[in-house]
């Protein structure tokens, strides 16, 4: 059964979803739960797709262009949109997904609702390598001062500002880098499936990408990986049990999800990586600690 799962399709789709989950995670880490990821995935896929198909660019520079477009798109949406918080922000990011989808449907140059054909070049090795590189960068991030700056900015804006942290900058940067990751995932996905159309990048996809992180855990980089792998592969595993089961797999899957979130709402993997290890050698309190305990 496991052997059946290790095929090119699954490696690519799982890897793409891991990158998307990390995009959501980066945005969430800086305080923005985003439902705009499908939109940025679309922008990345379309920008790179036009460059490779219509202009004959190689995949690598086209991918960079796709990511850059998403990064600047993220900045443009982020500066005005991130003034709002919570539910309103979810609505705004949902609106971004709808707008981009409808917008692409109306651009004749990229085929409208018909989409673009002929995207190719992504291999399972490229996807796997990308996951390792991005994962490595995130690992470095989570052991750097940036991690605690992000955590502080997310947790308490007033206190973080009093600690010299520029909240707007942190939030917009996290959102834009997350958007660039989603764009890169879109590039990889589009150039594997050959054919992309606006209906591939709807609000349901955005919700799924957010779900990867919510299910897996929001406090560390491994939670999103776990969520993405499980949500991508469980339907495939279920398929192995035969068509009788397959009809019920969505029901089963979302049932498990509901139960899980009821009992473990912080996600499956919710530990936090501490960015600074104690104790620093040679530091001991000089005065003895008074025994009285103030319980307040």
């Amino acid at each position: 059964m496991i052997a059946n799962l290790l095929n090119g399709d699954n490696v690519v789709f799982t890897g793409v979803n891991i990158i998307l989950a990390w995009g959501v995670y980066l945005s969430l880490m800086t305080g923005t739960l985003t439902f705009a990821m499908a939109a940025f995935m679309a922008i990345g896929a379309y920008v790179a797709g036009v460059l490779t198909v219509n202009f004959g660019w190689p995949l690598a520079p086209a991918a960079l262009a796709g990511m850059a477009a998403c990064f600047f798109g993220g900045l443009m949406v982020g500066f005005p949109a991130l003034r709002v918080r919570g539910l309103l922000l979810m609505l705004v990011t949902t609106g971004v997904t709808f707008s981009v989808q409808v917008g692409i449907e109306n651009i004749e140059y990229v085929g409208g609702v018909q989409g673009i054909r002929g995207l190719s070049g992504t291999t399972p090795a490229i996807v796997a390598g990308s996951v390792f590189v991005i994962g490595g960068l995130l690992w470095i991030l989570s052991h750097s001062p940036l991690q605690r700056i992000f955590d502080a900015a997310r947790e308490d804006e007033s206190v973080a500002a009093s600690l010299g942290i520029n909240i707007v900058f942190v939030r917009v940067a996290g959102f834009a880098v997350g958007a660039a990751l989603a764009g890169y995932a879109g590039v990889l996905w589009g150039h594997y499936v050959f054919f992309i159309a606006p209906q591939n990048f709807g609000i349901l996809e955005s919700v799924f990408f957010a779900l990867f992180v919510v299910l897996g855990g929001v406090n560390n980089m491994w939670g999103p990986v776990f969520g993405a792998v499980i949500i991508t592969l469980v339907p495939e595993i279920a398929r192995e049990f035969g068509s009788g089961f397959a009809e019920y797999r969505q029901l089963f899957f979302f049932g498990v999800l509901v139960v899980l979130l009821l009992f473990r709402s912080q996600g499956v993997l919710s530990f936090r990586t501490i960015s600074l290890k104690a104790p620093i050698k040679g530091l001991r309190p000089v005065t003895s600690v008074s025994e009285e305990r103030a319980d307040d």
Partner: protein
Amino acid sequence: MAEVLGAKDLHLSYGPINAVRGVSFHLDEGETIAVIGANGAGKTTIMRGLSALIKPKSGEISFLGEPLGRRKTSDLARAGMLHIPEGRGTIGGLTVLENLRVAYDIRPNDTAFAAALEPVFNHFPRLSERSSQRAGSLSGGEQQMLALARALINPPRVLLVDEPSLGLSPVMVKEAYQALAGFQSSGMSVMLVEQNVRMALRLADRAYVLQQGEIVLEGPSDDLLSKPEVLDAYLGSHG
């Protein structure tokens, strides 16, 4: 002495509610002032205005000789203003050590982090025991110590403390005020707002009495302390 922080005819409001109406005061270098007043007098609002967390409706604030203008809270923090808000200014999800590190990183510092920790842990031994715990898991008193320790690890020019005694046991209140006295004697300019009038007046050089958003009385702390009947008239019963 040079003025490090001042306000002229400052008006602050939350929407239609005018919380602070035409307040003027100044804090000189190395001085400690207290703003005292009952609940709802506008003390916290003044602090939030000074650190640019809310924009003044009118009036002027100057910090280190320059008008505040449109400067952001984070800019002011890096320029040397430390605002410890009411109810502990710590990040609960970070460990004690990470909280200190973030505070240390605000401004370039000649002292290495490990060396900067030494006075902090001498002052607050409890923090060194708890250095790898989440700040959110500390007791209220320990969190207030951690918030005050931010002023020690990378000393600001001006320290704004909002109700350091709020919700603390008498032992912890004493400890918090000892820490503030330490900052004071190191030459830091301190402004605190308090309901705990007696503690605040004993520490401060001068004080302003705030009532319903207006300053109704000001003067050297000793003068105010010697006229408890006047304070009572403005503040009601107090500790």
